[in-house]
């Protein structure tokens, strides 16, 4: 046993762990700065958020340690069980969860809140990886697709029912995993087109849009097809779908929750009042802009610290480094994340086992979607969606969830030599 463990250490990817530690440190420093007041100088003041975050980080490290010393095969063997448990928790939380700000998505254990939607994403990832790696030789591709899609969409639906649409959106990360494992690129492309079409329909003139779309369809039919009836009906069907989206957008938009509608309007800069619904974003933008090239210096920020920016330790935590460390610091954080994500893709690609590879892609994609949405909304490039920035946002639940997600993969990666092709 001890002999084998000793063998693992050189196979651990210390580069990824190094980036992880750096991001966690940056996160803690920024929570400290965001809540810093001269009256509370104690670094380990547990009544303050930075004091609590310190505990979350340390317990996260302990959790990471136990993952690294555990048996790698455990995660593969118990993946379905963990998936099932998560699904069960997602259903159970509807009935016994704490009601926080209109959403039934939290279990309260003493002082600690656990959000299964956030914490359980690693299990969904494990379950999906297990299924796709087992079924790779199966002939029925359609069935595989349906089951895989269902494994993602079902928990998403449960989360939407908990009024945690933001968290549900992060599950779209799995589309990258599915794409990597053979999903048609058209679907990925279609997904992007759909979003683009939705935005264009909300912003632009629907008649002009319809004419352009019809023109494009006609051109596609004439250039890319053999101009048969079959092709015409296919192109016509796609065009019909697009036009349905264009004209159905308003209907769908009007059936969103009021706050969701507002957030989209703020994002699109339509009828925005900067002292009401646009306040958060406007203040975040002001604060980020005030950082300038070099920033105001550590603890010298004003906008976040003085509560102009709401949720400045959680959803809008990115504002603090952008204000205090300027363009240099803000870019450094983005590059750190990008490096970690690319490193994870590199690690995933070197796996012999499809299970590890699929899981690794899942981890990279989940990080990507969180970073992209969170920083994107801070910069006004995304609608405001309340999801955390991995390892930086305040909160035990999210720090543990991301640590769990990452270290299971690093444990699998450390074990890659043990697996025979």
């Amino acid at each position, binding site marked *: 046993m001890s002999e084998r463990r000793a063998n693992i250490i050189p196979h651990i990817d210390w580069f990824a762990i190094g980036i992880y530690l750096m991001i966690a440190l940056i996160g803690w420093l920024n929570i400290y700065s965001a809540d810093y007041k*001269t009256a509370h100088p104690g670094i380990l003041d547990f009544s303050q958020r930075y004091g609590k975050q310190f505990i979350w980080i340390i317990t996260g490290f302990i959790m990471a340690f136990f993952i690294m010393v555990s048996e790698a095969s455990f995660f593969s063997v118990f993946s379905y069980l963990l998936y099932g448990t998560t699904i069960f928790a997602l259903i159970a939380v509807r009935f016994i969860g704490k009601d926080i700000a209109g959403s039934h998505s939290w279990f309260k254990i003493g002082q600690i809140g656990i959000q299964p939607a956030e914490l359980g994403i690693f299990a969904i990832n494990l379950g999906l990886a297990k299924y796709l790696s087992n079924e*790779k030789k199966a002939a029925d591709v359609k069935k595989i697709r349906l089951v895989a899609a269902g494994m993602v969409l079902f928990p998403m639906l449960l989360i939407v029912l908990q009024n945690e649409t933001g968290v549900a959106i992060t599950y779209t990360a799995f589309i*990258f995993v599915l*794409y*990597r*494992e*053979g999903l048609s*690129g058209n679907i990925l492309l279609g997904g992007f087109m759909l979003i683009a079409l939705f935005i264009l329909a909300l912003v632009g003139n629907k008649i002009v849009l319809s004419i352009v779309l019809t023109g494009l369809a006609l051109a596609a039919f004439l250039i890319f097809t053999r101009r048969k009836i079959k092709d015409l009906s296919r192109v016509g069907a796609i065009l019909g779908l697009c036009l349905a989206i264009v004209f159905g957008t308003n209907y769908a938009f009007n059936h969103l929750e009021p706050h969701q509608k507002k957030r989209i309007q703020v994002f699109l800069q339509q009828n925005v009042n900067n002292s009401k619904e646009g306040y958060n974003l406007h203040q975040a*933008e*002001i*604060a*980020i*802009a*005030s*950082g*300038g*090239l070099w920033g105001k210096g550590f603890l010298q920020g*004003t*906008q976040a610290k*003085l*509560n*102009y920016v709401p949720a400045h330790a959680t959803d809008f935590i990115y504002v603090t480094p*952008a204000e205090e460390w*300027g*363009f240099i610091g*803000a*870019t450094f954080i*983005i*590059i750190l*994340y*990008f490096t970690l*994500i*690319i490193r994870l*893709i590199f690690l995933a*690609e070197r796996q012999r086992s*499809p299970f590890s*590879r699929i899981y690794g*892609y899942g981890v990279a*994609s989940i990080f*990507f979607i969180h970073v*992209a949405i969170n*920083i*994107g909304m801070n*910069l*006004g*490039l995304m609608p405001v969606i309340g999801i955390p920035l991995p390892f930086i946002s305040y909160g035990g639940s999210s720090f543990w969830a991301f640590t769990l997600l990452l270290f299971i993969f690093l444990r699998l990666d450390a074990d890659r030599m043990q697996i025979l092709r």
Partner: protein
Amino acid sequence: MNSLFGDRKYIIGGIFLIACIAFIVRIFYMQVIDETLKLDASNETFRHITQYPPRGCIYDRKGRLLVTNEAAYDILVTPSLVKDIDTNSFCTDLGISKPDFISGIKKATIQNTAYHASVFMKEVTPEIYAVLQEKLYKYHGFTSQIRTVRRYPMKVAPHILGYINEVNKELCARNPNYKEGDYIGVSGIEESYESDLRGTKGVKIMMFDAMNKEVGDYKEGKYDTLPLTGANLTCTIDAELQEYGEQLMQNKAGSIVAIDPETGEILALVSSPFYDPNMMVGSVRAKNYGKLLHDSINVPLFNRALMAMYPPGSTFKTIEALIGQQEGVLNENTAFSCPGAFHLGKISVGCDAAHGTLQLEKAIALSCNTYFCNVFMSIMNNKKYSSTEEAFNSWRRYVTSFGIGIRPDIDLPSALRGSLPTQKYYDKYHGRGHWKGATIISLAIGQGELGVTPLQLANQAAIIGNRGYYFLPHIVKSIGDKPTIKKYATKHFVPIDAKYFDIVADGMCDVVNDGTAAASKIPGIIMCGKTGTAQNPNGRNNSLFIAFASKDHPRIAVSVVIERGGWGAEWAAPIASLMIEKYLNDTIKRKDIEKKMLDGNTIQYLADEKNNQKKKKTKTTEKKVATIKKHKHKNE
């Protein structure tokens, strides 16, 4: 599958890279290129708080404090925070009623919204504040802000010192030195030395959080500027003399101006009726100001010493005597005979008595009208000049050189020029070529169209005392450490040779020794004076006196005007003599005269006259009030 879709890692990585680059470009745009959002941050977080410097103090010539600063407290309210307070006890502490309280909060809400602090009550005295302060923490939503208000420990010289008032909006718009709520001097020294007294405001940069709560200095005050205290002024006033003058002038309307002839420094400048300058301070100001402004009988805000215009009467004969000599139509031996009146054609000017034949010195001592009418005729009919007009213009130039008819260049606002008619005026009035010396004979005895202010009269006395020169009368000796302003140290000469002054001084000496003002002789002091009894068409004559002492080494020159006081010797001369005695000897030996003057009441005559006129609605007082008002408008 791995080998099948292996290339897709590049597509996925590419998507991630594009997102990464897009974000960095966006951040670069927001933080480095776009400047519009940056201003917003400092606008909402930093407030530049003005640090008010204490206004400079004012001292008298002997270092006695005349104007100082005292703490007062503005009570501020943030209406949204006013909760669970004991309104009754709060109202009792502040000395207001409950409706006052409610309307005050309403006003604050309208003025500055419920979420911002605005002034609830202005300039609460330290006494009231002392009580309130201990309980202020219980009165949620109320805070205090310290301000300074002016205090006048000696309660003298309100017209000289002036007062300060809040600046109005128009001035704020015009002058970047002022912001709404600032104070500015609007009369007296406070006005004319405003730029020295106000000091320089400092700025403290404070940070405020999103709830508009103050959270402290920005960078420990590294970028703050300190306020610079206004310069202290030392004025030329002798506060003790001023105070004595004010005592003498109680229940009288008129003024006293005392000048040091050797320097032009004004030693005392009393305008009566006066008021306690402390009335124009703090929360009582508005009420008192209205009261003083609308007192149309006494017009206490009217600075008579600089603005009131009186016919100089017989005091003018001294100037007449000097011009006559310089023009060569008069010398000390020139004799005229006085049959009790001056007759020329249809014109006759009465004299107090038939003085018989007399010479210049005696004529001054006895103030003989006949003599000076003859002198005036000699000047007007001088062979030197081809016409009366030419002789008149020459005469007028001499008079002007004494400062009469021109606005004095004094460091107090609102001094007036008096009245000295021009040739043009007479041409218009009588027709060109249709007037002669006899037509304007009233000028000979200081009547007619002639009008002088008490300040001009005092300066006239100083010129005679100095035998032909004067320094511009001024009120401030030094600003901070800087000594007197240069222009006040320059000698101004009148175009009359010094030798002609001695005979006038001799005559003036006789006035006090055995002439018209013999009762005002001061033992041990050789005082020279000249009485004036100026006719007043509305009632009793104005009593005037100019004097300097001592005769050959004058240290003080005085003018006194007592409206409706009657003979010059009756009130003006004794008061002038007491002022001189006080200044030179420091103690008054002639207690009987002093008592008579202190107890005297001449204002009753003025009051009676004004009450009679009120029905007729004469313009004089209204004009005076209008002058004050006009003046205020100019400044505010």
